[in-house]
């Protein structure tokens, strides 16, 4: 802008309003989209939540105090512990975050174990404590955790324990990683399929378009749940958990690509007749250049919005399959797997904290949907009027 300012004729005063305008005039598509998105408050908040959830997934080992498979039969179905910040000692109140231990009492009539908080047993907890060792982001070895008992052997159940005395909080954090990544990987796979088939369909038209459209219609006409069930049941039981994980994402994306293919096809069809695309053709631009320089940039923002809106579907599908016992299986921990364990009346009656993964699912899915809506509204900053 500085060199331009010099050429400006003297009659143009540097008026702040004009400066503001000039800022809009030189703003690229992404800037305009961002400015428009910013006005969408709910989407902004949802975006922050989604980023938070993905950060949790990324730094799961750091955030979780315990590994997913650490169990303690003393604490089966232990309720969540309250975190106390101050400890009363002889010298008075002292700042020492801690949780209290439990006394286990057995109801002589119902033979049910009940946990009674024992205020005398103090397990000090702290931030950045040592625990199990892991490789942070797969890069360097460390054993520091954000929060945990100062003595790694001490029990700490912020969200209670499950039927084997495993920490629900740690498992929820690890489950975030699997559930969120299955959404991403699945969407990525269906994105490739959708772009490819939708692109062929929209760009070339004719018979290819006809075939692909009929295929899409066929896939969409098959009821999804039985189809998932059938495909998931076909995965060999002998597969490793990792292979099953991958198999499930492939199954989800094999069904999920149709929506995206339709979006891509529709965009190509409308863009093909756009004047500026014809202008490029008359400039002598090659087909490659027209596709990559004119058409694709015109709908990337729409694609991103569609992708964001597709992720929750994937997450829900994984959760549903795992919940029914046909998706991921232990020892893999996902929100669906966790919910499957809460699948009985006892869990709801005596250990409602086992349902916390359900809250995580609802919050994440809602946040992704609102974010996607906001993106979709902001995706075309050039719509007139």
């Amino acid at each position, binding site marked *: 802008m500085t060199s331009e300012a010099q050429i400006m004729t003297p009659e143009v005063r540097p008026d702040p309003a004009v400066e503001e305008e000039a800022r*809009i005039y030189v703003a690229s598509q992404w800037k305009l989209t961002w400015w428009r998105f910013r006005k969408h408050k709910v989407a902004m908040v949802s975006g922050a939540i989604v980023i938070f959830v993905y950060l949790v997934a990324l730094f799961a080992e750091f955030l979780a105090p315990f590994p997913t498979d650490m169990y303690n039969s003393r604490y089966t179905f232990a309720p969540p512990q309250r975190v106390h910040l101050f400890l009363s000692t002889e010298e008075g109140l002292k700042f020492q975050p801690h949780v209290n231990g439990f006394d286990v009492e057995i109801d002589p009539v119902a033979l049910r174990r009940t946990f009674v908080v024992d205020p005398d047993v103090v397990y000090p907890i702290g931030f950045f404590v040592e625990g199990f060792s892991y490789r942070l982001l797969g890069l360097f070895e460390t054993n520091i955790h954000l929060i945990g008992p100062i003595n790694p052997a001490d029990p700490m159940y912020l969200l209670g324990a499950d039927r084997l005395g495993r920490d629900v909080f740690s498992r929820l954090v690890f489950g975030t990683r699997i559930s969120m990544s299955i959404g991403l990987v699945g969407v990525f796979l269906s994105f490739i399929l959708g772009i490819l088939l939708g692109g062929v369909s929209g760009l070339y038209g004719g018979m290819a378009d006809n075939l692909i459209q009929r295929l899409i219609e066929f896939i969409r006409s098959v009821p999804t749940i039985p189809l998932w069930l059938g495909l998931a049941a076909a995965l060999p039981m002998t597969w490793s958990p990792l292979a099953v994980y991958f198999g499930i994402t492939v199954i989800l994306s094999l069904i999920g690509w149709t929506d995206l293919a339709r979006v891509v096809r529709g965009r190509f069809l409308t863009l093909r007749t756009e004047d*500026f695309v*014809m202008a490029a*053709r*008359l400039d*002598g*631009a090659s087909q490659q250049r027209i596709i990559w320089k004119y058409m694709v940039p015109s709908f990337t923002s729409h694609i991103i919005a569609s992708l964001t809106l597709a992720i929750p579907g994937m997450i829900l599908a994984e959760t549903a399959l795992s919940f029914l016992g046909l998706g991921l299986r232990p020892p893999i921990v996902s929100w669906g797997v966790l919910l499957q364990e809460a699948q009985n009346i006892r869990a709801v009656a005596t250990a409602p904290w086992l349902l916390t993964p359900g809250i995580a699912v609802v919050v994440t899915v809602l946040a992704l949907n609102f974010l996607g809506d906001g993106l979709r509204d902001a995706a075309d900053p050039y719509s007139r009027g």
Partner: protein
Amino acid sequence: MSAHLSEMSTISANGAAPLLEVNDLHMHFPIRRGFLRRVVGHVRAVSGISFSILPGETLGLVGESGCGKTTAGRCILRAYEPTSGRILYRQPDGKQVDLAPLSAQELKPYRQQIRMIFQDPYSSLNPRMTVLELISEPMRINKTVAPSEMQDRVALLLRKVGLRPEYMRRYPHAFSGGERQRLGIARALALDPHLVVADEAVSALDVSVRAQILNLLQDLQEEMHLTYLFVSHDLSVIEYLCDRVAVMYVGKIVELATTDALFSQPKHPYTEALISAVPKPNPLLRKRKQRIVLEGEVADPANAPSGCYFHPRCRYAEARCTAETPELRNVGGGHYVACHFAEKLTLRGAESVALDV
């Protein structure tokens, strides 16, 4: 058809050789139906038109929506592949080349010499490119200007169309409709073309801005020795800007003459009705003139009537018109008409509308 075509070329050749000769051009779009997308018919958007454009002149192509004028323009630009016919373009060295059968690769050099100005200044500029990228794009694709000289060249073009070069980093959304149309013109001129096809280039603009753009087009024509094919539905703009005018009706040219002759002594009943239908900006005229109001609607190009396409709406039609298709023929002085009774009819032309303001 061929007899009068050769005659036409000789007549247009009596000054300079024509820059472009269009011979019996057809453009039929298939209508497809059903699962197997079988062709069930054709929309004959352009069904056999012939005309030529002399270097330096402005030829107007006028008609109502659906008459095929835009399709004809796009065939010449080879945005469409014509069904049949020849598009003979004369290169600067005098050799003629038929553009109609050329492949995309073979067309590339001619795409630089024949350029287009679009109607809609909003949809014809890629909103995701800055002015610099937009205007330099044709030069980059055709490698006519070195990258180091690109900025200067774009600045020059912007000045030429009356825009400030300082704005070349801005995006199209920063500009008003008239300014965007100037950008479109700069794009068209970037490759130093010989022939410019302007498709309704001023139709989307307001009266005051339209006048600016018309003036600009005239100035540029003089300065850069351009030849225009000006496609429009607006008779007043055509009358103002063009040297010769071709009137189209349902895919055919019904009359072609110099602007003066066509507007003062139209020889085709459709031209007469068209001229009469244009509202004249002079309140005195409405008291004394009898407007010819055409009955019915424009014929469907997928299902055109027999004989002369205009006969169902023509007030002079006779039995012969329903049976026999009139050819476009010279009735003297380079005035071409496709009407059986061109010599017999005395038709009304445009009245003077001069306002003293």
